[in-house]
């Protein structure tokens, strides 16, 4: 009997190879992240074996402070966001760990309500990470989990609509090299899908009529569906925008709407507004140059083209790209700020 117990203890010991210094190192990485050295911390975490990460995080959830745990959540989340395209399985692993740590932190006494805004935003952001990597089933699953916890969160309905939008782009965009033109049935499928996305945005707006993201996405979808209600949604997005990214995109889309309808002066006005909000981004320069050319102002078109080409290479930050892939970058910034805020 004694011999059997000894063997069992030995097995347990081998199965949990977590040294105290691993846990300390793990929490040190989290603190490094919270101190603003996110890239260094994620780079170092990235080379940890997954078994060590699992073991250290499993101990840390019982020993770390809530502040450390939230930093650890964002350490894993930021790493996953940075690597999901190249290493989707590793990213998924880190997001699962992040979720476990987050659950533990919010399960601490008195923390559930306090952490609720963080948890909501985390679900939305992680859904957007999966969406942007076109891992749409994983994105849908995380939205489902989020809605189980927060069934009236408008941001999660926006996330659900975005998954559909990206799915349409992934599955239905024609291959230009074959000069594909949509047939009727194909177009019907696209419109059905986009109607589904629009339904999610409408649902979000029924929960929060001033949700600028929902107005923006709904306006964009309706723009593509040639729905006359697009403009009012995009105007509402401008009015309700809480950040420059939404404001910039709403003006761009309003410009696109006016350009489609050949209201070139209106288009110019909107694209100029977009350029004022995002003067470092190339998209409005290209659009304005196109409009000036259409208006017969060749010199101005050329001038704008040159100005666009001379921009510093910050175009990767153009919110246009995040919108196209469904990434909630503002969510990432918000979450980072939360764990880095001095107490």
């Amino acid at each position, binding site marked *: 009997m004694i011999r059997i117990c000894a063997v069992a203890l030995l097995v347990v010991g081998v199965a949990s190879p977590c040294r105290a210094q691993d846990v300390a190192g793990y929490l040190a990485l989290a603190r490094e992240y919270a101190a603003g050295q996110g890239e260094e911390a994620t780079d170092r975490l990235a080379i940890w074996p997954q078994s060590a990460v699992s073991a250290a995080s499993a101990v840390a959830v019982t020993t770390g402070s809530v502040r450390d745990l939230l930093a650890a959540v964002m350490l894993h989340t930021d790493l996953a*966001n*940075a*690597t*999901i*395209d*190249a290493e989707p399985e590793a990213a998924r692993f880190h997001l699962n760990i992040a979720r476990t740590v987050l659950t533990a932190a919010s399960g601490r006494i008195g923390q559930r309500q306090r952490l609720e805004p963080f948890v909501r935003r985390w679900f939305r952001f992680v859904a957007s990470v999966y969406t*942007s*990597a*076109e891992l749409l089933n994983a994105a849908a699953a995380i939205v489902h989990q989020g809605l189980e916890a927060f069934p009236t969160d408008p941001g999660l309905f926006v996330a659900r609509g975005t998954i559909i939008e990206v799915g*349409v*782009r992934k599955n*239905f*965009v*024609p*291959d*230009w*090299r074959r000069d594909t*033109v*949509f047939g009727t049935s194909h*177009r019907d499928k*696209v*419109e059905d899908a*986009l109607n589904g996305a629009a339904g999610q945005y409408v649902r979000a707006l029924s929960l929060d009529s001033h949700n600028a993201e929902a107005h923006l996405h709904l306006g964009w979808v309706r*723009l*593509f*569906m*040639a729905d006359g209600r697009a403009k009012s949604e995009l105007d509402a997005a401008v009015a309700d925008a809480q950040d420059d990214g939404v404001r910039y995109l709403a003006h*761009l*889309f309003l*410009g*696109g*709407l006016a*350009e*489609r309808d050949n209201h070139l002066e209106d288009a110019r006005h909107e694209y100029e507004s977009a350029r004022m909000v995002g003067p470092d981004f*190339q*998209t409005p320069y*290209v*659009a304005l*140059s*196109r409009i000036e*050319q259409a208006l017969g102002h060749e010199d101005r*078109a*050329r001038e*704008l*083209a*040159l100005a*666009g*080409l*001379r*921009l510093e*290479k910050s*175009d*990767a*930050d*153009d919110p*246009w*790209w*995040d919108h*196209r*892939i469904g990434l909630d970058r503002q969510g990432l910034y918000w979450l980072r700020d939360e764990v880095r805020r001095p107490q």
Partner: protein
Amino acid sequence: MKLVIAALLTAQAVSSPQTTFRSGIEVVELDVSVTRGGVPVAGLTARDFVLTDNGATQEVESVTLEQLPLSVTMVLDTSQSVAGDRLQHLVQAGEGLVAALHPDDRAALVTFSHAVDLLVPMTGDTPSIRTALGAMTGNGATSVRDAIHLALQIRPHDRSRPLLLVFTDGPRMPRSTRRNAPAWSFTRCVWNPTRSWTG
């Protein structure tokens, strides 16, 4: 080689007591290229050409033969999808083009991924283009339409022959690490009437 045909076009005045108008003669230059078996045909005169405008025969006043330099704008896709061998082939093609230029010819280099960059403005300094070609890397999304628009806008407005060469493998691309590659995109043009989802 370039043949310039100057045609005399007489404006037709419409009789109207309420309208002030000017009449006159406008000389219109037309650029044409005449080849046989891929070789320029020499010795042509005005009598060798017939010019019509909406079916009406116009007078061809003169034909001049000119040897004009080229202004080549190379527009190269440097998105993630061309990284590796494709990019090397692009670089080699670009170097081949530069090597084939005559001393009076000029070239510019525009690259595009998610952003469009004017790497080398129009220049006769071909070594600078070779250097820029050698430094290219593949990353990011594909803004091919934006690149074409911008490159067309910056073409020289002089007596040289503008030539725009666009090399791309198309807008689809695999995604790479998010730190460097923000997105795949079909086109960044906000409104694209020929390619909208609704046809």
